[in-house]
């Protein structure tokens, strides 16, 4: 006898089948097809405006509730400084100490033998005060450590991860938050996961197929189309709402595109608007699979782990690629690590030594909808992607800056700093000289030695005076 299928389970199967078909059709029509052609229905813009209104209401509600209950609302310290730092330098301060009557005037009569004049700068016991105060100032507030943790928001965006005041302020707010959780995890997350899987599988499959074609114009054209299409699907998988500015400055073949780095998503954001040759280390697993299939369709630059340490090899491969005008522009993130999008840290000079045109790009995320910063010491990649896909949206602006070339009188480091300054200005980010490597490593002793040198000069300079007199 065959299996007994009840009419109820038959109905269930039918319902599941219908809803699945409906789901896929909606997906196809509203998301995948526009992605292929680069069109948009404007749904995401509307979504963004609605969310903003809701967040504003939530913040007002929280402030009101806090006032009623007489709690003090926590103000994020990174937004308003705790202290006002004195801008004086070491030299100025020490000169001031010596000018305003050093202790030697007291003993003027006693130390008649040496008889130094009040203006000579000898060691004062109060010299330590300057270093002491600067040290304490840096403990209370410093430029660097806050670059490596997520930016704090002024208004709450209904995500627990960015809330510092979460006490039960009002029922309505909690209900709204609960509603938000259901929408994000119940509806948006599965939708986005489906899209992501679709996008990645299409990428892998199509690029492998295209790899079988002979090299030529057709292959390049198809490869570009496929890359763009799959990246656009991935963009929708993150509900990323991107505004591109100055597209006339888009990078051209034979150039190098440099941008500030906040998260791995930067790549997807830039690559969905133009075709680039990626640079990076070959990974294993899924990432490695994607990398290997991508390189079949068009030349990307992937390095083995050992090759990454060899700077000459890296430079040679990059410059070979750049010389070939038929190859796509290279995409590089010179900071070397993810920074939290409030500042731009030191650019490594390697990509600026190659000698081709540099196309700077500034990327600035709007943290109100979801913080894109990848704090790699706190979260692994999978955890990070899940957080991205369960945020409201990723909203960012991309500015293509005019191309820059190295001038005769500047070296690679100065050129790198010039480009960094331009990117920081455009994106409204703080321009820092510190190395992004400080996220994991210790600071170089050379900086301490500089300070010691300056101080020594102030002391020793007087020895020369005294020996003369």
């Amino acid at each position: 006898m065959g299996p007994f299928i009840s009419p109820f389970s038959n109905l269930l199967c039918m319902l599941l089948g219908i809803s699945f078909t409906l789901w896929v059709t909606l997906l196809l029509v509203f998301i995948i097809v526009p992605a292929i052609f680069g069109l948009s229905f404007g749904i995401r813009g509307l979504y963004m405006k609605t969310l903003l209104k809701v967040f504003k209401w939530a913040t007002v509600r929280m402030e009101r509730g806090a006032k009623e209950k007489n709690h003090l609302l926590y103000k994020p310290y990174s937004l308003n400084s705790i202290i006002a730092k004195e801008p004086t330098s070491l030299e100025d301060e020490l000169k001031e100490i010596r000018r305003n009557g050093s202790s030697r005037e007291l003993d003027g009569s006693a130390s008649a033998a040496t008889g130094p004049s009040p203006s000579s700068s000898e060691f004062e016991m109060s010299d330590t005060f300057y270093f002491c105060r600067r040290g304490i100032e840096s403990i209370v507030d410093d430029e660097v450590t806050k670059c490596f943790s997520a930016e704090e928001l002024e208004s709450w965006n209904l995500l627990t991860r960015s809330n510092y005041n979460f006490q039960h302020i009002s029922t309505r707010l909690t209900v709204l938050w609960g509603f938000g959780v259901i929408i994000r995890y119940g509806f948006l997350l599965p939708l986005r996961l489906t899209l992501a899987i679709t996008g990645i599988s299409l990428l892998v499959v199509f690029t492998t197929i295209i790899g079988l074609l002979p090299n030529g114009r057709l292959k390049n054209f198809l490869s570009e189309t496929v890359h763009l299409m799959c990246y656009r699907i991935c963009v929708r998988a993150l509900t990323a709402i991107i505004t591109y500015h100055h597209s006339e400055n888009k990078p051209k073949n034979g150039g190098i595109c440099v941008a500030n780095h906040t998260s791995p998503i930067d790549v997807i954001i830039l690559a969905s608007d133009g075709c680039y040759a990626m640079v990076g280390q070959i990974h294993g697993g899924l990432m490695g699979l994607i990398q290997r299939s991508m390189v079949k369709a068009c030349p990307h630059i992937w390095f083995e782990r050992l090759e990454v340490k060899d700077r000459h090899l890296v430079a040679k491969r990059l410059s070979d690629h750049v010389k070939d005008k038929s190859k796509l522009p290279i995409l590089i993130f010179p900071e070397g690590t993810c920074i939290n999008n409030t500042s731009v840290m030191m650019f490594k000079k390697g990509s600026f030594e190659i000698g081709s045109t540099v196309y700077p790009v500034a990327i600035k995320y709007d943290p109100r909808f979801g913080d894109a910063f990848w704090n790699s010491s706190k979260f692994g990649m999978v955890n990070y992607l899940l957080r991205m896909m369960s945020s409201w949206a990723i909203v960012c602006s991309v500015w293509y800056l005019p191309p820059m070339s190295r001038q005769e009188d500047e070296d690679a480091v100065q050129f790198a700093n010039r480009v960094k300054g331009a990117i920081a200005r455009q994106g409204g980010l703080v321009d820092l000289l510190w190395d992004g490597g400080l996220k994991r490593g210790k600071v170089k002793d050379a900086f301490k030695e500089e300070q010691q040198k300056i101080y020594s000069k102030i002391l020793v300079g007087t020895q020369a005076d005294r020996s003369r007199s």
Partner: protein
Amino acid sequence: MGSRASSLLREEDIEEIKKETGFSHSQITRLYSRFHSLDKGENGALSREDFQRIPELAINPLGDRIINAFFPEGEDQVNFRGFMRTLAHFRPVEDNEKNKVLTPGEPLNSRTNKLLFAFRLYDLDRDDKISRDELLQVLRMMVGVNISDEQLGSIADRTIQEADTNGDMCISFNEFTKVLEKVDVEQKMSIRFLH
């Protein structure tokens, strides 16, 4: 996660710290969030490594001595109370008129206590005297390798000679205070805390 930072600090604790240090309520909560962000191990206390992770402090020639000042004798963890107590030394002095500090004895940011803080930077073994060796150590930290031992030695000798009044070739706290009589300690050893 940093999201619960302010909720871990109870109102009673804030009041006690306010009385002891003279910081305002909002200053204490913000310094608490700073404390929390430095505390990578998230165990409610800072270790020396947590301080050394601050690049600007790591390149300060006196960085290690300043970090030392936070840790009480023989311990290598400092909790938030200890952190605030040390920072309180750097509150500007005028603020005392505005918020009445209710502890008995001198407030932590009085001129004497500021000088004591600076004195302890030199006096590593806490014997209330700055010996020639201790002075040399601090000098060496501040000049690095740029000055020879002999020159440094003569600078140290000269300093002790001028400060020492009782002839024991060491600088006591009173002698230290006398030497710095004319220096505007209140301004040089204060940080402008906002609200």
